[in-house]
């Protein structure tokens, strides 16, 4: 297949899945089979594309212009390939998990769930492969709109309220800030929006005021990156079923947000302009604040999913931080964090979901000692927690290492301190869950009986175990991934970086 066809296939496969699910909605097995087949096929396509990219190619697909200067075009580069790989790979896992969860929980409207899930994946693929800001914005909105029904899936008043907050925050930031920034970019860049190595705006001769305003609009406009104070949509979206939370936190949505920030800093601004932009320092501060504040809030949450949600906010601010550092190591660290955090966070969520299906429990305090009954689930949770904290030999270590490196390169002394405090806080809010689950304090009452006979469905246990294993694999694979990504940052020329290995 030609690269064009591959890209088209990557975009259309999820749509195809959505249509077939709609057709086969009456037959659950067929419906889920189609989903999985589609996910596997998509993953295969993305791997092929990734191999092409690794070989130095940049597959392109040009659809056409709406008006001059506003083209719908796709172009895959290493960053996008990484994101596509993460999203499509985790879709397979998540699909298996969804089958167990949705059936085990006897959710209603399952067909609708699978349809919108597939559409959301299509949006994520579009974001990953977008060749310019316009295309990216389109698929960014597709992603927003297609996840809204998923968040509102339960349909009760709480779900609707949460979903409304979700939608309004994301659409509001994207329309008020992101779109504004895109329009402004379009004007100052001479009616172009392409992603260009070295930065589209690098030679536009922007005044510090304009570049600062643009940067602020972009960073807050990408509401999916969940930078404070536009983070509240993420906790309020916790009303969704767990596979959806996994989609939001690990597979597509927040990842799409931070990926967009990364892409803007590398391909729209470029490292040089970014470093010359006064607002960058303020935004770095906001990212640092988000990391600490979200971790502190997470500490106080008793609801497991809420705690994980705030953890996500903190962890993804790492990526924004890395992107804004505007040095190669920082960007690399941020990109690695996308992958590493995805694997770890999806594990955590799937564990939380498995616990919920089996026992109906949602609070951390009620889970003490539950690990005795569900050892596999809690082991997976423990491994993922280690990865989030950044302990070797788990995938979460490398991004932090690179970020520290980047902070040193960018000579900002306070960032390492933030990273260390954050790691300590991670330990404080994540480890007790797993450890108290496995080894309850003496005197705690025995864990509740399973609500569902037979405990968690097999699929909901196997999936987190698999992704926990992935965390380990990512530790090993960090080197090749770094090599794969590095060409993306090559144009942002900060010399004298160490090799990763």
């Amino acid at each position: 297949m030609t690269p064009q066809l591959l890209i088209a296939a990557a975009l259309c496969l999820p749509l195809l899945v959505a249509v077939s699910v709609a057709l086969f909605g009456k037959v659950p097995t067929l419906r889920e089979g189609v989903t999985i087949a589609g996910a596997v096929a998509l993953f295969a396509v993305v791997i092929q594309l990734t191999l092409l990219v690794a070989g130095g190619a940049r597959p392109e697909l040009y659809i056409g212009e709406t008006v001059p200067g506003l083209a719908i075009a796709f172009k895959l580069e290493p960053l996008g390939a990484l994101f596509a790989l993460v999203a499509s790979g985790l879709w397979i896992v998540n699909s298996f998990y969804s089958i167990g969860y949705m059936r085990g929980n006897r959710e209603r409207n399952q067909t609708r769930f699978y349809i919108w899930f597939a559409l959301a994946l299509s949006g994520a693929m579009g974001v990953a492969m977008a060749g310019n800001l316009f295309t990216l914005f389109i698929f960014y909105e597709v992603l927003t709109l297609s996840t809204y029904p998923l968040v509102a899936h339960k349909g009760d008043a709480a779900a609707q309220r949460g979903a409304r907050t979700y939608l309004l925050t994301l659409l509001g930031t994207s329309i008020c800030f992101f779109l504004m920034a895109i329009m402004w970019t379009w004007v100052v860049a001479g009616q172009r929006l392409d992603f260009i190595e070295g930065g589209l705006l690098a030679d536009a001769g922007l005044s510090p005021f304009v570049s600062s305003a643009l940067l602020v609009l972009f960073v807050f406009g990408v509401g999916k990156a969940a930078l404070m104070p536009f983070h509240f949509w993420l906790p309020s979206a916790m009303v969704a079923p767990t596979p959806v939370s996994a989609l939001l936190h690990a597979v597509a949505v927040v990842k799409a947000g931070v990926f967009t920030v990364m892409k803007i800093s590398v391909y729209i601004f470029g490292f040089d302009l970014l470093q010359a932009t006064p607002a960058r320092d303020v935004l770095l501060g906001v990212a640092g604040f988000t990391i600490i504040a979200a971790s502190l809030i997470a500490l106080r949450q008793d609801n497991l999913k809420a705690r994980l949600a705030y953890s996500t906010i903190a962890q993804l601010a790492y990526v924004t931080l890395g992107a804004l550092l505007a040095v190669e190591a920082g960007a690399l660290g941020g990109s690695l964090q996308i992958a590493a955090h995805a694997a770890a966070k999806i594990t955590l969520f799937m564990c939380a979901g498995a616990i919920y299906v089996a026992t109906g429990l949602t609070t951390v305090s009620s889970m003490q000692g539950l690990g005795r009954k569900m050892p596999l689930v809690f082991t997976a949770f423990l491994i993922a927690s280690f990865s989030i904290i950044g302990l070797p030999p788990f995938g979460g270590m490398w991004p932090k290492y690179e970020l520290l490196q980047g902070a040193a390169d960018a000579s900002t002394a306070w960032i390492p301190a933030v990273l260390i405090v954050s790691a300590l806080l991670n330990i404080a809010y994540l480890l007790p869950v797993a450890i108290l689950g496995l080894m309850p304090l003496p005197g705690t009452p025995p864990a509740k009986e399973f609500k569902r006979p037979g405990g968690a469905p097999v699929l909901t246990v196997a999936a987190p175990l698999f992704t926990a294993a992935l965390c380990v694999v990512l530790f090993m694979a960090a080197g090749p991934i770094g090599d794969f990504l590095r060409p993306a940052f090559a144009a942002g020329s900060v010399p004298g970086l160490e090799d990763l290995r």
Partner: protein
Amino acid sequence: MILEPVLTSAPDWAVRHAAVLVVVVPMLLAPLLALSPSNRLAWILTVAGTAAAFWFSLILLAIIQEVPGSAISYALGNWEPPIGIEFRVDALNAMILVLITGMGALASFIAWPTLAAEFKGERLNLLLCAFLLCFAGLAGVAATGDAFNLFVFLEVSSLATYVLVAMGAGKDRRALPAAFSYLVMGTLGASFYVIGIGLLYAATGTLNMADIAEQMPGLSGNRSVQAGLAFILVGLGLKAAMWPLHQWLPNAYAYAPGFVSMFLSATATKVALYSLIRWLFTIFQPDLAFESAVLQWVLAPLAMAAMVICSVQAIFQTDVRRMLAYSSVAQVGYILLAISVGTAAGVSAGLLHLFTHALMKGALFMAVAGICFAYQGSTIRDFAGLGRSAPFTMAAFAIAGLSLIGVPLTAGFISKLQLGYALLDQGWWWAAVVLVFASFLSVIYIGRVLQAVFFEPPLNPRKNNKEAPLLLLIPLWILALVNIFYGIDAGFPAGLAADGAAAALGLGAAQ
């Protein structure tokens, strides 16, 4: 050239007289309708008349596009222009004519399914007659090149509009006071316009627009000309529902019969806006000092106030039609904001938004008309759960709603983007901020309806699922698909708007 087949297939007489036939054919069909013995025959004639007008306007557009920058001048009675009345069609009029005749044709199409049950006996043919006259009047306003003739056709269309609005009284008596206040405001607007024309006539001695434009550079300091501009602005602003002269609009749109609100929202204010553009840019020139002051210090603030205030008002409406009506006022604000920039890019963006707004508001009102017909209600509460009961109608509604918000890949996005470009290009970033904020407000009010439609259970479980009638669904989906198509390939409307803007700004200077 996409329109070439239209031109080559048209007979000679049609090409020669297209400029006037676009008005005369519906105008002369109207009295025939009043005499028509059968309602169905009357409806068929209406569709035929509007379709013919659409064909003529396409011919006009094709002729204009053959030679860029050209204009068709048709001397009525063969009296050379300053003496007789002239129909003058350039790229700007041609675009507006295509828009209003196209929307009129679609509106006439849905008149039968939505009205046949309600108006029995002899009244439907008279109602259609009034509709056709309104249509002809609007086409006349768009085609004429004579300042006073414009007033006459404005009154033809307005009087017909008042009675069309009042015909909603069969369902809701509030249509009557709505029509009455529309009548008072509309008449005041027309009177102000006439005063303005009088002042200009006193200064120039002619009524032909091109003639007035020619004399304008020498008269920039003339106070009666300046006052004339002010009166014309207020008069046409009343007709165009410029904030704060819009009070007549929400009730009129909310209580008129469904197809009437659809037609009016897509055409009536648009034509008034067109004449405003014609006056502001072709006849007066934006580089005249007093006019640029008016644009920047009067028009732009009013436009922004409309965008924000009326969007907020739209959020608090319980009736979907009133909500859409307030949204229309806000959208007029968008267009006026674009115009007030005063550059070619601005006028072009304003025209594009005018075009796309007609498409999306037409579709929205059409869908609401269908729902009103099928379910007898138009509050948001009545809309709850319709996503299941009337999926096709509501899907089209959703597409048009997203276009109104300005979601990418819909026509609304393109026009808003152009608007933002025009503003930022001029350094009006504060206006661009208002633009995006108003767009966000539109997310809220459209979102409220869409949420009720797709995610809330119906108030009373409906016994049977009913779609809007098929005759309405077809034009509705045409509009919805056009909304998407122009979101993907906006070349055609963007080209029309750019040509129109060039024509608007160029006529006075070129002569």
